């Protein structure tokens, strides 16, 4: 039993800082949109009130936030206006991630994020924004003990203080390559577009477009091209740096039945995922990395945003040589078999794969080709390219089935292979459109936790789809 206590006061700064960061853009918009031509002190009222309110609320919620734990439960009390008391059984905590942000580092504390199974409606999450490192370790140990007690598995030797060999690390060079070849740059570009669109109220876009048009018709089109290119390059640079900070000193260890992933430079983070909560293994190979024989590996974790990405997505290896993947997975998650033999799609599916990209491309390409005659005719080369990508996708797509495991593979720009154990498959769907039925093809799609996670392959042979469907049907049959 620990005494009831508050977080380290640095939590106020970390919390208020986070709130303020998310307020900057809306406040700027309000300020600029609200002010007429001349800027006066009145325009500052709204932002100042908002900032002051955030700060006061930050302090009050720090005062109100207390936590304690005993052998069985973690008790958290919080809320400024509405008091909320939560008691989370330690044995039901599914994942812990420990983060050291910049603020936390300055005070020598850590942030602990806890995922627990809630009621049927959802998962319970708690963030202890600033507690001492020693305390975080004690809490983790208590969780482990509570779990062992629940499983009645008496460990003969003490859990702690046994060295665990690193199963996977990233060298500095690999961090570089991983950052340079990741798809994150596109994300930054998208964010940039979203950011600019927020300012559409006061950037005179119409005048800008007119200017651009006249410049375009003059000699300025190279300048515009260069300008866009440099923005894209800058965005790409930002993404690379972000990824480098994220993946620096990346280490994967296995401690008993938990996979622990530690990573990060300025912000150190350790994500613990119990093996029992892993719902699947996903291997991504984008076209660039595939060319050099590299891949990246993620695990699907049931619920929660432990890793800061999408729900249930935890990166196990940001970049790894393809031939090493099987042995790493063998060490971390021995139940998965990555040497599965993939069945290709039937030949008659190829035409559908080639036509599918064209459906979207034909009308825009022909329009461009017609309107920008004669040079626009070059756009027509996009069509055979689309068909070629279609055939590549057709070659890659496939499925593999063993008595315990289903594996599905698709994609080309980013080839995705998903391995799922039978007992984790929540439901299986086989579907066929009228076109597919004519060619005796079907789409197969398997769902796992968390909500909305699925893997699918289009245009599998109808017979094969049926056999995958029956595989889940005969659940009890093949265990005997």
């Amino acid at each position, binding site marked *: 039993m620990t005494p009831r206590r508050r977080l380290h006061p640095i939590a106020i700064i970390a919390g208020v800082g986070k709130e303020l960061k998310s307020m900057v853009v809306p406040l700027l918009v309000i300020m600029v949109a609200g002010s007429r031509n001349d800027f006066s002190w009145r325009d500052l009222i709204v932002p100042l009130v908002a900032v002051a309110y955030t700060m006061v609320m930050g302090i009050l919620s720090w005062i109100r936030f207390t936590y304690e734990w005993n052998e069985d439960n973690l008790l958290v009390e919080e809320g400024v206006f509405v008091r909320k008391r939560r008691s989370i059984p330690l044995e039901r905590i599914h994942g812990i991630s420990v983060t050291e942000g910049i603020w936390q580092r300055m005070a020598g504390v850590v942030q602990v994020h806890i995922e627990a199974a809630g009621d*049927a409606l959802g998962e319970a999450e708690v963030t202890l924004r600033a507690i001492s490192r020693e305390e975080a370790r004690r809490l983790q140990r208590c969780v482990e003990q509570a779990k062992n007690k629940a499983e009645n598995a008496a460990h003969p030797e003490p859990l702690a203080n046994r060295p665990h060999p690193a199963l996977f690390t990233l060298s500095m060079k690999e961090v570089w390559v991983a950052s340079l070849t990741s798809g994150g740059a596109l994300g930054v570009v998208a964010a940039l577009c979203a950011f600019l669109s927020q300012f559409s109220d006061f950037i005179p876009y119409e005048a800008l477009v007119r200017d651009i048009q006249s410049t375009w018709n003059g000699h300025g089109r190279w300048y515009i091209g260069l300008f866009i290119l440099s923005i894209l390059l800058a965005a790409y640079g930002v993404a690379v740096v972000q990824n480098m900070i994220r993946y620096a000193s990346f280490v994967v260890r296995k401690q008993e039945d938990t996979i622990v992933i530690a990573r990060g430079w300025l912000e150190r983070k350790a994500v613990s995922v119990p093996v029992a909560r892993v719902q699947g293994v996903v291997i991504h190979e984008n076209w660039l990395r595939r060319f050099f024989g590299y891949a990246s590996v993620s695990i699907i974790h*049931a619920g929660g945003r432990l890793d800061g990405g999408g729900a249930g997505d935890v990166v196990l290896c940001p970049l790894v040589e393809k031939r090493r993947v099987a042995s790493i997975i063998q060490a971390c998650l021995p139940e998965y078999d990555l040497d599965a033999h993939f069945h290709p799609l039937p030949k008659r599916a190829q035409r559908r794969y080639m036509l599918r990209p064209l459906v979207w491309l034909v009308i825009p390409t022909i329009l461009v080709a017609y309107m920008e005659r004669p040079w626009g005719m070059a756009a027509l080369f996009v069509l055979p390219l689309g068909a070629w990508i279609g055939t590549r996708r057709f070659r890659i797509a496939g499925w593999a089935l063993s008595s315990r495991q289903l594996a599905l593979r698709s994609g080309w720009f980013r080839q995705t292979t998903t391995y799922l154990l039978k*007992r984790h*498959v*929540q*439901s*299986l*769907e*086989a*579907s*066929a*459109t*009228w076109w*597919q*039925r004519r060619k005796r093809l*079907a789409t197969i799609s398997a*769902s*796992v*936790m*968390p*909500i*909305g*996670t*699925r893997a699918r392959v289009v245009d599998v042979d*109808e*017979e094969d*789809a*049926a056999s995958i*469907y029956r595989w*889940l*049907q005969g*659940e*009890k049959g093949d265990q005997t």
Partner: protein
Amino acid sequence: MLHDSGKPISIKAVTVWRLTGALGAAASGVVIGGVAFLISRFHAPSWLFAVLAGAWVVEAIVWMVWLPPLRQRRWRYDIREEEIDIQRGVWSIRRTLIPMARVQYVDVRQGPLLKRYGLASIAVFTAAAAHEIPALPMEEAERLCCLIAEWAKVADEDDA
């Protein structure tokens, strides 16, 4: 493999869907009417109104006349001790298999329209998604709900 097996849902589903289609058409009629009024203020050419009216008529026919019987005819469900098997869809036929051991809970749902025709839907929840079987006779829905709850419990115990 996507052949009709299992039990059909109530034939009254067609009537219910025709009614919901009518409600939808009424709602979109209001929207389209509003748009037509707006563009009439800007002296739009008359063929534009014809296009709008045509779109509305097509939508109403599709949702009130054409789709409901097709959907009802395609719907099949089969609830066995070890799994739930659902088939649906008009253009794309989809068949879904849910192992009983993955079922977390079941709901019986009934809106005012369904109630008027003595029907109810059941919704089956797994940890990954919700699956609905619409428009069953009310007693049948309640019986199935209990049955699924019972079997899901048994399957869970077997699994553990």
